[in-house]
């Protein structure tokens, strides 16, 4: 097991991602944030918290999206859905999707399908903590990346959060 990011590094990375988000979406004008269930929401919660501090305001449009019903491997075992909560329209909005790890790209493909059922956004951007480049199975790339990781097929990259897994860190396991 090798640690890629420790808690302090993750917190700095989250600050940077929030700043970069604002660079492209000034004041979050017409921009909404959507975290992907189940594991992306820990990151999106923290990015939204950071954005609130930077902007010193609370009214950020922030939703959660579950992609279970849109998976392309739905017949390979039972997938239990999580909560989706998008209490605003995404029609003609700029949407920033947030997930912890970008690997094959299949989750994001499903998320893009799911999003279209809520409206037609002006633009969709993708923000991830870890980008496992060279492992993609679909032509999908992130707009904001915490750390790029080159890991082999057999390795697992795990993002752990204190509130769920006791400690905050990113590790590679064999």
């Amino acid at each position, binding site marked *: 097991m090798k640690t890629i990011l420790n808690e302090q590094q993750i917190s700095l990375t989250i600050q940077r991602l929030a700043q970069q988000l604002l660079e492209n979406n000034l004041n979050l004008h017409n921009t909404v944030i959507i975290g992907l269930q189940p594991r992306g929401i820990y990151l999106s919660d923290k990015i939204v918290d950071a954005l609130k501090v930077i902007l010193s305001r609370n009214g950020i449009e922030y939703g959660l999206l579950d992609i279970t*019903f*849109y998976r392309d491997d739905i017949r390979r075992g039972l997938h239990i*859905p*999580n*909560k989706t909560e998008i209490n605003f329209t995404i029609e003609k909005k700029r949407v920033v999707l947030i997930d912890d790890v970008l690997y094959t790209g299949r989750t994001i493909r499903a998320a893009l399908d799911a999003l279209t*059922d*809520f*409206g037609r956004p002006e633009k969709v951007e993708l923000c991830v903590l870890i980008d496992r480049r060279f492992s993609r199975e679909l032509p999908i790339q992130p707009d904001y990346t915490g750390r790029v990781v080159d890991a082999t097929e057999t390795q697992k990259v795990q993002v752990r959060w204190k509130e769920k897994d006791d400690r905050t860190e990113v590790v590679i396991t064999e």
Partner: protein
Amino acid sequence: MKLSTPHLLGIKDLQSQDIRLILDTAKQFKEVLQRPIKKVPSLRDITIVNLFFENSTRTRISFELAERRLSADVVNFSASASSVSKGETMLDTVNNILSMKVDMVVMRHSASGAPHFLAKHIPAAIINAGDGINEHPTQALLDAFSIEDATGSLAGKKVAIIGDIMHSRVALSNIYLLTKMGAEVTVVGPPTLIPKYLEQAFNVRVSYNLKETLEWCDVANVLRIQLERQNQPLFSSLREYNLAYGISRKLLDGLSKKIVIMHPGPINRGVELDSDVADGNESIILQQVENGVAVRMAVLYLLADRGEE
């Protein structure tokens, strides 16, 4: 986590964790139904046939909407417009339909046990949409979902099931479900419409006093008087039934607390339920119908998803 059964034949066969899984999954589908596009692609590789050997409005439309909102291919069949009237057996009918590559069967039949018989002889997943006077599992599930929705939980809730218990598959499915999930059940109705030994067979109380039971309960699930299944007079007149066991505005207003009124439909207005009660603010009858689609989507999703692994 997956369902412990390949079919949904009755609540009797379900474990409490199966019921929990269905109700929790239904919550997510209820959210899907609030979206601008109320449809997900989960079942687009699945073909479902709705076999209705007995009449139905709500259940049939509810199942069909649930199927279509999961993107399944849907075939409808009603016995009256089919070769059943030419003398074909049920098993032949179903096998012929299945040979056209159908994955799931939703069936309603006037004979109790018809879907259980089918499940033994055909390879498809079967969902019981009501069999005779036996069970109507999806109705009990949507009733439970609606009780949770309206009151927050099932465990510890006091539920009265009122009316024609004898001929009601809704009552039996509800009794199974509510007792499995830790709710308390009292059935109330005229002695002729309550089966003997019900108290001994199930963990329920029997009462013949409507007012006392309404005062006790948090939720009243009022059943339809099923005249079509009663082949002998079991009470003297509908008017007398209404006076003794019908729920009126005056009766409700006389209670010391507000209770939730449910009815599986179709309502006989002025018999078991007066109009101003059915349409009153205690009634969640239309929410039940709305929740029915989400609950059926959950059942279909969970049964279709038993994939190859």
